[in-house]
């Protein structure tokens, strides 16, 4: 770098005569200060669009809200399924649950389930498998649900388990779809902002 380079760059160093001559000649075209006349009609102010500025934040908040809602729904469904499980056992017309009570209704069992638990003779008879399952469920419902939790789970038939799993899968699918939609909306919102930025930089009258 010689002195001419420095002079051309920041006017330091030894001036180059040719550059100086050009400056002198072209300096006659230099900007002559003029006062800026601002018409009264020209409005200045922040007209920032609320949604444009906070779109990403809104999208994130909506995503979180949707996830919480989905989680709540899922938990609610689980609780409902758990509370429904004893009733499923005794629901008539569901052969997969426990067909035996429907096929062989016992007067003692049908009229008063409590009798089943109190009746010693019935307890002795439940050595056969179907009878044993029915009585277990009645006992579980009436006596102590906590103690017989394992038995209750066993009483859920494969069909009902499949239904529950299908419901859970549907819920998970719905949550995934909602999540995908939200992420798409978020990307779109960010895309809009980026486009605006570029637009700003190239905006012309």
């Amino acid at each position, binding site marked *: *770098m010689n002195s001419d*380079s*420095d002079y*051309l*760059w*920041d*006017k*330091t160093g030894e001036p180059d005569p*040719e*550059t100086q*001559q*050009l*400056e002198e*000649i*072209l*300096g*006659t*075209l*230099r*900007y002559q*200060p*003029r*006062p*800026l*006349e*601002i*018409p009264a009609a*020209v*409005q*200045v*102010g*922040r*007209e*920032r669009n609320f949604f444009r500025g906070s779109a990403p934040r809104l999208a994130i908040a909506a995503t979180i809200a949707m996830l919480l809602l989905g989680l709540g729904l899922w938990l609610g469904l689980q609780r409902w399924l758990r509370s429904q499980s004893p009733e499923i056992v005794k629901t008539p017309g569901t052969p997969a649950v426990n067909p035996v009570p429907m096929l062989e209704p016992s007067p003692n069992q049908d009229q008063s389930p409590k009798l089943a638990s109190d009746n010693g003779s019935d307890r002795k008879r439940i050595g056969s498998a179907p009878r044993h399952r029915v009585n277990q469920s009645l006992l579980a419902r009436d006596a102590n649900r906590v103690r017989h939790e394992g038995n209750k789970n066993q009483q859920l038939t494969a069909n009902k388990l499949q239904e529950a799993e299908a419901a859970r899968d549907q819920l998970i699918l719905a949550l995934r779809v909602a999540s995908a939609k939200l992420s798409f909306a978020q990307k779109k919102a960010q895309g809009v902002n980026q486009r605006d*930025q570029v637009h*700003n*930089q*190239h*905006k*012309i*009258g």
Partner: protein
Amino acid sequence: MYELEATADVLLMTAQAKPSIAERSVEAVPEAALVEAVLAGNRDMFGRLYQLYAPLVHGVLLARLPRSEVEDLVQDIFLHALRKLHTLRDTRAFGPWIAMIARNRANDFHRRSRETVELPDDLCSNDSSQIKAEEILAIIRTLPDAYRETLVLRLVEGMTGPEIATRTGLTPASVRVNLHRGMKLLRSKLGFEEGLL
């Protein structure tokens, strides 16, 4: 010996480059403050922005348009900028933003004015220096965009390289390259023109 001189030159260049960056950061703060003040409703502060950036806009336009159009366009561009100031996201980037507006406005001007013959601005002027200046400016306008704008800002508006970099948002290295290459091209073109200098 040559190596020592070369090293000294490099050191000198580095030492000179550092203040320009510092100068840039110092200048950026009041600029952002001025923009914020205008956005807050203080219209008078826009006058200060106008004083700071009118030479830049003038230079950008002069590199592309006839001189007779430039003066009015400078005012128009600042009024437009005042109306649209709320769309400026980075308040520190007022310079690059308004320079871009000026470039776009110049392009618009060329698009609208179809096939017109440009008369000399000072048709009746007998001022030889003025005519000479117009002729040199016409030669500068034949240079590539990046070179002509930088050269006009340096030779016409009298800005230094660091100032050009700060105002336009270009890196100092780019401005330096544009200045030197543009000057080289200009010299070679002026060499073909007889008796300009």
